[in-house]
């Protein structure tokens, strides 16, 4: 009987514990995310969704447990991992005194991205003409979000960590975001989406994990007909084609 090799993990957390002072942000998370998989991370406020994404980005160190991203240790291979991971967080990481175009250009060049991708990415998010030359200090929250998304899509990293990606976006931008996620997913980008708006995101994800109290308390497959068997065990890679 031929054995099938498991798909490689893009993100692997084993007994991950992260602390902020003495407060546990993650209290023993086991999660395997396959290359090209899209996972919805859901849970109530303060459950640890944002912390989980920041740990995966290498911004919060683990107190115990193991983490590998794209097969690399994010602490020892920090630069290599970060250049292949993109985090869309609550903050937009923009400099108010730079224009939209300058902000995108700086972020893309700093991460070693290709400069030729900047213009198409800006155009994708409607950041052209006068808006491209506008100082970031004059942008609305939604426009700042678009700039952050332009940086992400210009860089096009192998792992996307999206924290409440739809927050602050208008209907057209939400549609653009859904298209970008679908396109990234189709090109084997691994995506983790932390969101309260499960309904909006469920259609984009292969699997949902629920974070409660810094742990993964439940896991379910998405996009599977109700009659099909869709069971997973914690830690197992579930990729719905």
């Amino acid at each position, binding site marked *: 009987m031929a054995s099938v090799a498991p798909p490689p993990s893009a993100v692997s957390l084993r007994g991950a514990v992260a602390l902020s002072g003495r407060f546990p942000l993650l209290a023993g998370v086991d999660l395997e995310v396959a290359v090209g998989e899209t996972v919805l991370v859901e849970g109530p406020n303060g459950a640890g969704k944002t912390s989980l994404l920041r740990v995966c*980005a290498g*911004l919060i*160190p683990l107190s115990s447990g193991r983490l590998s991203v794209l097969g690399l240790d994010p602490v020892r291979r*920090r*630069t*290599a*991992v*970060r*250049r292949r*991971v*993109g*985090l869309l*967080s*609550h*903050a*937009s*990481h*923009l*400099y*108010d*005194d*730079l224009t939209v175009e*300058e902000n995108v250009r*700086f*972020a893309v*060049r*700093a*991460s*070693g991205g290709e400069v030729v991708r900047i213009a198409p990415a800006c155009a994708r998010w409607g950041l052209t003409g006068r808006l491209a030359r506008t*100082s970031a200090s004059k942008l609305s929250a939604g426009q*700042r979000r678009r700039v952050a998304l332009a940086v992400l899509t210009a860089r096009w990293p192998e792992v996307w960590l999206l924290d409440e990606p739809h927050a602050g976006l208008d209907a057209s931008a939400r549609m653009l975001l859904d298209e970008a996620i679908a396109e990234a997913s189709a090109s084997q980008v691994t995506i983790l989406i932390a969101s309260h708006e499960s309904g909006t995101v469920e259609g984009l994800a292969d699997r949902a994990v629920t974070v409660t109290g810094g742990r993964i308390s439940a896991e379910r497959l998405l996009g599977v007909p109700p009659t099909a068997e869709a069971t997973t065990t914690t830690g197992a890679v579930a990729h719905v084609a």
Partner: protein
Amino acid sequence: MWRDAALVAGKDLRIEGRSRVGLSQVAPFGIVALVLFAFALGPDRQIMAKGAPGLFWVAVLFCTVLAVQRSVSVESADGARDGLRLSGIDPAGLFLGKSIAVAAQLVVLEAVLAVGVVLLYGARIEVPWLIVVSCLLGTVGLAATGTLYGALSAGIRVRETLLPLLLLPIVAPVLLAGTKIWQAAMSGGTPSDGTQWLRLLVIFDAVYVAVGVILFGPIQETA
């Protein structure tokens, strides 16, 4: 490393060029400090000229604190520091880039303050090259230590008050050496009176640039 340094320095200088905080706030602050020192010393121009070297460098140190705080605060808004960390930029390049940007601003400020010292205190510069070299070497040391300690204090809520407390004692050798060199350059002393202090500045610069290149990454991750 140097590509990242040029990128970061260009970004910081562009931001400074737009906001003009250095020209509109830090430089006037330095001039005000010189004027206040003059008030404190009284109308005797001989006393003022004698105290000019030390007062110049004290004013430079105050301006350095402001320039470094500005450099740190640029990265504090809207999670920009996290953005830099996430970009995977070389920490040594980041350190050098931010140091270069601070140094460029300090050179301009020192030129303004030097003119102020000559005009306000009636200081006579007799060995100009010694003044120029001491300013350049002092600037490198101040920018490197300032950037390093700015990163140390970056994640702390009380960084505005903590930074001067951390930085000023560390840069005391720059104040001491700079003052001695200026005294040698102004009082008709020989250049050799100042060269031993130039050596101190070179060593100070080499130590703090090396420490910054090596430690900036770990500091940035833990601050």
